């Protein structure tokens, strides 16, 4: 955009022309090469299954160029300045932030996480990072409120919010130096921030670095072969599994201003075609890769120890130990190309992409040291490198590589994992995650060569997701849900009621039918106890019958009286006890303590039944009188289990009650009441119904899929 000849040291006074400044402003404020806001957000939110590489048919990216809106930039500066001046000092930082970033339109509340590369959205690493940054932001707020000097004294932390500080003063380059520092890595328990721009103090003398744009501006007297490299502000965090960034190589026109539309877009001027031709003739002496801090920045990455890079002039891949002997790797690249560099920390491999096309693994056995994205370039031919650290959509579909669409197997895994977590099967969810992890591990434990990275990554991702599901409910809630569930499954309804009342009182209030069902279940459980005892007594009676029968009339009569008494007093709802049957049951040599226990249980059950009757006689919301009658009728049978309402006594009924209560608790906690698996099932049934009318669905019965009872499992 500006036509200053290359050369001259950074920060030289002659460079403070307004035009020059505005270019910084543009780069810094995000106009430089950010697509319009609507795009950048859609990119992140609407992850279309496979988007085409964002390049026009001739392979050149369709993006706003660095020179875009040169005349608007001074406006954006002044706006920044005014907005920063108009507000109280403590919030100035945020204002400056918001204003300078207005094209990108990240809200201030998320300002601490400047951007999340699309492929890392939802990853555990980003979550950790966001959490740390949120905490930091809170701390900063506090600090800012406490002292009004906060803005002039920025905290020297690694929070990426600092990275944006230079944007406050786009016209003041010196300040940029002062604020950006080579930040030390954080303590290992804190997630490392993502690289977000080039480190400005790298290559001070020969490179012009602004945010994510780099160009060679070395002194004129140096030879054309002079090179320089730059590293990003932070190393690539190994925790994120795969790290990826892209560099676009652009030509800066030598003489005269060429409108941005000339670079890209349909109406290219003939002059541009000429320029393009001129640059195309020589492949750019550009190296794209990564390096540790050991690597000198005086030479291109790839030629130094602990540096790895893909070189544009010959398409070879170089790394430190190769002693400058490159390996034939990919095509050459030059102006107009977008080169991507990715490091898979899982397999310790690196790969490159060119204009959205995967070029294959370039390096293996990358050591476990902090590695910074790095680019290097030579003076000739002059190029301008603009880097996308993930703020914008990548040309290469990295998302697909990191998170491939679920195949059938992983879809099922995910459905089950989510179901288990959702429905509160905490232990199972944990065991399932372990089983899946073991399965994935066995796939990797092959003695042979390293396995395909995508596969590994996919499994890794699945494990991570499972872990996430495990803690879908808070630890506390999972524990409560689990305890309530197991109480019900054990038949201990009292405990479940107590726990629910203690922790989720509103659930029982809001859903009286659940309370009703729980209480009915309690009655049923009492009847079950009676039944169990009856069976035990029958057993001992049978035993006794084998022996001679020393019946004790006294004992028998006593029992009989007792039963009569019971019958007389417990006359509820037309339900009568059958003393004959009960007498029959006790008609053996049954030790009296058992009988006493039996009576006690029965009395308790009947009394509880009476209370139930009293409470629910008038009906009310959620009360099922028919069920109540049926449940009470259990009392009439000598062997309730084999009666027509015996099914109430099945322990299966406990599961139903437990699930219903669980769902209600989940709803009250604001969780979806339905697992994805259940939704899938319902959808399937409706879909099949849709195509059933004489269509292909007529023969499908979804329910058969669930007909586990009829099947020999």
């Amino acid at each position, binding site marked *: 955009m500006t036509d200053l000849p290359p050369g001259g040291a950074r920060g030289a006074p002659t460079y403070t022309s307004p035009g020059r400044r505005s270019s910084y402003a543009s780069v810094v404020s995000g106009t430089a090469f950010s697509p319009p806001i609507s795009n950048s957000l859609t990119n992140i939110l609407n992850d279309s299954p496979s988007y085409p590489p964002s390049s026009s048919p001739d392979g050149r990216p369709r993006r706003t160029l660095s020179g875009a809106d040169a005349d608007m930039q001074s406006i954006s500066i002044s706006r920044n300045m005014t907005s920063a001046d108009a507000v109280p000092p403590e919030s100035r930082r945020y204002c400056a932030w918001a204003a300078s970033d207005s094209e990108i339109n990240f809200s201030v509340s998320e300002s601490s996480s400047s951007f999340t590369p699309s492929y890392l959205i939802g990853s555990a690493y980003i979550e950790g990072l966001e959490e740390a940054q949120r905490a930091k932001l809170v701390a900063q707020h506090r600090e800012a409120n406490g002292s009004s000097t906060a803005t002039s004294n920025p905290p020297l932390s690694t929070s990426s919010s600092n990275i944006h500080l230079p944007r406050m003063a786009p016209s003041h380059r010196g300040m940029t130096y002062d604020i950006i520092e080579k930040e030390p890595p954080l303590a290992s328990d804190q997630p490392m921030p993502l690289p977000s721009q080039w480190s400005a103090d790298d290559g001070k003398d020969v490179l012009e670095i602004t945010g994510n744009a780099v160009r060679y501006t070395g002194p004129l007297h140096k030879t054309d072969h002079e090179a320089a490299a730059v590293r990003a502000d932070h190393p690539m965090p190994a925790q994120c599994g795969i790290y990826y960034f892209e560099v676009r190589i652009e030509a800066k026109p030598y003489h005269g201003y060429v409108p941005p539309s000339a670079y890209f877009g349909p109406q290219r001027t003939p002059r541009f075609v000429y320029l393009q031709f001129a640059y195309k003739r020589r492949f750019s002496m550009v190296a794209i890769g990564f390096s540790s801090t050991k690597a000198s920045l005086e030479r291109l990455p790839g030629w130094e120890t602990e540096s790895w890079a893909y070189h544009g002039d010959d398409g070879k891949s170089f790394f430190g130990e190769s002693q400058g002997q490159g390996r034939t790797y990919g095509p050459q690249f030059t102006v107009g190309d977008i080169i991507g560099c990715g490091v898979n920390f899982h397999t310790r491999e690196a790969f490159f992409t060119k204009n959205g096309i995967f070029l294959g693994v370039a390096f293996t056995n990358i050591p476990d040291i902090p590695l910074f994205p790095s680019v290097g370039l030579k003076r000739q031919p002059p190029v301008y490198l603009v880097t996308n650290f993930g703020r914008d959509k990548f040309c290469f579909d990295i998302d697909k590589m990191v998170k491939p669409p679920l*195949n059938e197997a992983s879809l099922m895994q995910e459905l089950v994992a989510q179901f288990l977590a959702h429905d509160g099967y905490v232990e199972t969810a944990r065991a399932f995650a372990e089983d899946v992890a073991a399965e994935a591990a066995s796939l990797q434990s092959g003695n042979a*060569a390293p396995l395909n990275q995508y596969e590994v990554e996919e499994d890794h991702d699945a494990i991570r997701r499972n872990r996430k599901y495990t803690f879908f409910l808070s630890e506390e809630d999972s524990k409560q849900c689990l305890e309530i569930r197991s109480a019900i499954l054990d038949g201990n309804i009292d405990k479940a009621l107590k726990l629910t009342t203690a922790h989720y009182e509103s659930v029982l209030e809001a859903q009286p039918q659940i309370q009703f069902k729980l209480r009915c279940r309690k009655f049923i459980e009492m009847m079950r106890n009676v039944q169990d005892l009856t069976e035990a007594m029958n057993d001992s009676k049978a035993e006794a019958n084998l022996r001679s029968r020393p019946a004790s009339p006294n004992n028998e009569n006593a029992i009989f009286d007792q039963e009569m008494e019971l019958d007389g007093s417990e006359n509820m709802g037309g339900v009568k006890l059958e003393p004959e049957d009960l007498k029959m049951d006790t008609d053996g040599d049954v030790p009296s303590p058992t009988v006493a226990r039996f009576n006690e249980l029965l009395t308790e059950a009947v009394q509880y039944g009476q209370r139930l009757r009293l409470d629910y006689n008038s009906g009310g919301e959620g009360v099922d009188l028919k069920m109540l009658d049926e449940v009470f009728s259990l009392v009439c049978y000598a062997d309730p289990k084999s009666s027509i309402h015996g099914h109430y006594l099945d322990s299966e009924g406990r599961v139903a009650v437990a699930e219903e209560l669980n769902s209600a608790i989940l709803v009250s906690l604001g969780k979806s009441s*339905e697992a994805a698996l259940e939704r899938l099932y319902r959808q399937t049934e409706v879909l099949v119904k849709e195509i059933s009318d004489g269509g292909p669905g007529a023969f499908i019965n979804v329910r058969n899929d669930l007909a586990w009872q009829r099947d020999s*499992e």
Partner: protein
Amino acid sequence: MSANIMSRTPSTATPVWNQFERKVDEVKTTKTDINHLVMDYLITNGYPGAAKRFAAEANIQLKTDLESIHERVEIRSAIYSGDIKLAIEKLNELNPECKANEINQILDQNQSLHFALLRLQLIELIRTCTSVPNGDIKPALEFATLQLAPRAPTNPQFLEDMERTLSLLIFPKDQLVPGLATLLDPGLRKEIAARVNEAILEHQGARKEARLRHLVKTRAFAENKAREAKKDIPDKLDIGLLSETHDSTHSRNNNHVNGSTNGNGDIVMTNNGDVDSMMS
């Protein structure tokens, strides 16, 4: 049973969406059914730890003994880790009544599976010898001569598979054409392991695939057919996977589900076959 308490917030989208949603909400499912669906998956696909836990937590009686799941898991692990020899041995041990020198029933009945396993073993041998410079390719060649060559002529597909596999020896590993590269992909191990799992299940008289898988396929099939017939269904059928954890992953998961239903021709194809066989 639980359906009555599920009051989903009405969707903000089109009436079509609402109508479909309503229908979906009206479908009755019981937790017991879903639990058995999950249990069946855990057993069939070999997750013994989870199956054991789930039996306890969901109060389901385990009708399959865990030992048989473990056997399948061991075979799967052997295949996953590339130890095909061990896998074949274990497969043979599954039927104690067969003497060791007899041909194993499962593999005997399924020649193509047997060949696939042997070919995988050859691939692993080739992987081993090409992973080091100047690796000894003799074991791989010997294995191909002794084990695969006699079987290859019985089936033209076998022959082609064997030839393609052996060409792995010729090309440098990092310059393989995609067709050959897939042979070295762990996906192949997964695929073979799944086939072996199915064969064992079938042999034991169990259903060879989990009901859940059938359900997923049916859904994909039904959605496709319904869309073909231009039925009133929403553009995107969200099942809510992960939507609770991250807002912006919402659409991503839509894509996942759609991807596995519409995008994947394979699934749709198998689907067709399956449903047809169900109809007959």
